[in-house]
């Protein structure tokens, strides 16, 4: 138990470090000029170094990248507390798919739970707001789902337990046409699959 909690400390520290870094290179703004020249942080990172799985010290990486190796099947079968997947839903800025610190927090909770519920499989659903044609939004939704999936993999969740699907703007959380509604709809959700 002691060992485990010190692991978590390391994870936490690394996450804080990474998120500072991410905040540094991708400042979020609704106006979205910031993205110009952005070489696609999260998804891009796919081809780079497999980054720190939990115990490793945080390296200087643009974003947590996947750990493609089947990994860390923690915790023996035991009664795992159910988790509120809806509450872990994460939000994105307009035309953006980078993860906020709040989003990362939720993903860490999810990863922690998935390590206990070690047979659970999760599909990440990427969604977009109604602005722009849905074909582009389908691609954007997929990037959002991939950025979440990649982060979960970086936290040691095996890629085989994660899948993605994009619905673009087809399944709004809030069908309204206000900016508040659109903001809610720029999201990724987590769904348990068999």
């Amino acid at each position, binding site marked *: 138990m002691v060992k485990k909690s010190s692991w978590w400390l390391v994870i936490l520290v690394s996450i804080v470090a990474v998120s500072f870094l991410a905040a540094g290179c991708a400042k979020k703004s609704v106006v979205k000029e910031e993205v110009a020249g952005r070489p696609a942080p999260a998804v891009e990172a796919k081809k780079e170094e497999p980054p720190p799985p939990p115990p490793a010290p945080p390296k200087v990486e643009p974003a947590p990248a996947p750990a493609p190796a089947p990994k860390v099947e923690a915790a023996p079968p035991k009664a795992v507390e159910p988790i509120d997947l809806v509450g872990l839903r994460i939000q994105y800025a307009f035309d953006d798919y980078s993860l906020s610190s709040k989003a990362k927090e939720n993903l860490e909770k999810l990863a922690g739970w998935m390590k206990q519920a070690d047979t659970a499989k999760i599909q990440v659903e990427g969604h977009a707001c109604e602005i722009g044609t849905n074909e582009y939004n389908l691609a954007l939704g997929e990037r959002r789902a991939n950025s979440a999936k990649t982060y979960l993999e970086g936290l040691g969740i095996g890629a085989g337990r994660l899948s993605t699907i994009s619905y673009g703007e087809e399944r709004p959380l809030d069908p309204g*046409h206000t900016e508040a509604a659109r903001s809610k709809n720029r999201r990724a959700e987590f769904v348990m699959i068999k």
Partner: protein
Amino acid sequence: MKKQVLFLPALILLTLFLAHHLSAKVYIDIRSPSFRKFPIAISTFQSSAPNQRNMQLGERASEILKNDLDISGFFSLVTPPGSVEKEARPGGSDPPSKPGEDRPATGVESLDFQPWANLGAEALATGVLSLRDGSLTLEARLYDVVKKELIVGKRYIGEITDLSRMVHRFADEIIFALTGEQGFFQTKIIFVSQVGGFKELYQMDFDGRNVFQVTNHKSICLSPRVSPDGTQVAFTSYKFGNPDLFLLNLRTGEEKRIASYPGLNISPAWSPDGKRIALTLSKDGNSEIYTMNPDGTGLTRVTNHPAIDVSPTWSPDGQRIAFVSSRGGNPQIYVMQASGQNIQRLTFEGNYNTHPSWSPRGERIAFDATMGGGRNICLMNSDGSDLRVLTANMGQCEMPAWSPDGRHLIFSATRDGEPRIFLMNAEGTRIKRLTFQRGSDTYPYWIPRLRESSR
């Protein structure tokens, strides 16, 4: 869909008068820069058995014809004084002689053209409907008012439900006789409608009539694009969970899945020769544009960039593809050779330009953009010059698609609340709402003429 096919043979066309009037006179030079609208009058169609029902048929027929000719943009409709009130109350019966009205079996001689000439009309369209044993006959004629002679005369025989098709057919004859070009009044539009929680493909006449459901996937269907010969539609559907690409034969109803790679299988676009489909796949980890044969074989990757590449559209010569890419930081329109070479950015204004649609005739690209105070339909030359915002104050305007003659655009707009299909000319004027059913209507695509039904 099958119904429609069955009606086709029921519609028999007879040429009333032989082609001695088919001299190549062009009344309206629509290519001329100094083109002026051609003044045409349409008399209310007569019915040989004027019971209440037939009266309505006659008025309906002339309304359909007026609407067609008005949409074409080539004509100014000459309205005889006094007819406005009459048309305002359908079924109003005061058929007493209006100037120049056609009578059953009327020859040119007995028509009085002078009143129409006085109103400034240069052509006059008339029609006579008769209903016998469930068979509907339309005799329709187009006269040159100035020369007092017949230009076109046709007789159409069909079922009563064929009325609008007969009139559209005659409207095409008028366009051809006066301009030398093919009209589009017999063409149809395919679109996506959300009814009862599902998005399915629907089809309708170009003017919004005769709507019917095409797919029944009980899922989300998107991006219908019809082959250049008008027979097959490629579209994305979540029928099996993932957004896969399907091909549906509009005549036989036969459907097959032609792309089901992991990730996105979206935004199909037919090459002008119908031999390739450009599409977007994300199977390699990132959305890229590919081309393939319509049966799904011969897949070739075209773009290669870590940003989003999506929504290809072909130039009419099939040599180039315009598409959307976020490689500049936000979605903009780019163009490249169909091989993927020589990528150039076309749009630099606005930060959200999507859904390019290349005119089937010439070097213009329509797209939707956050410009002009909202989401609007824009038009530019295919080198990016002469950018214009076509729509204003119509809510979110998206997904433009061209008419076969390249003179009109259809698109989706939230002007009246939920998204509906609208039609306008390529200058952004003469806007008409086409859909009125429940639900929301998006992704309009104009079905090209069936090649077989060429004249």
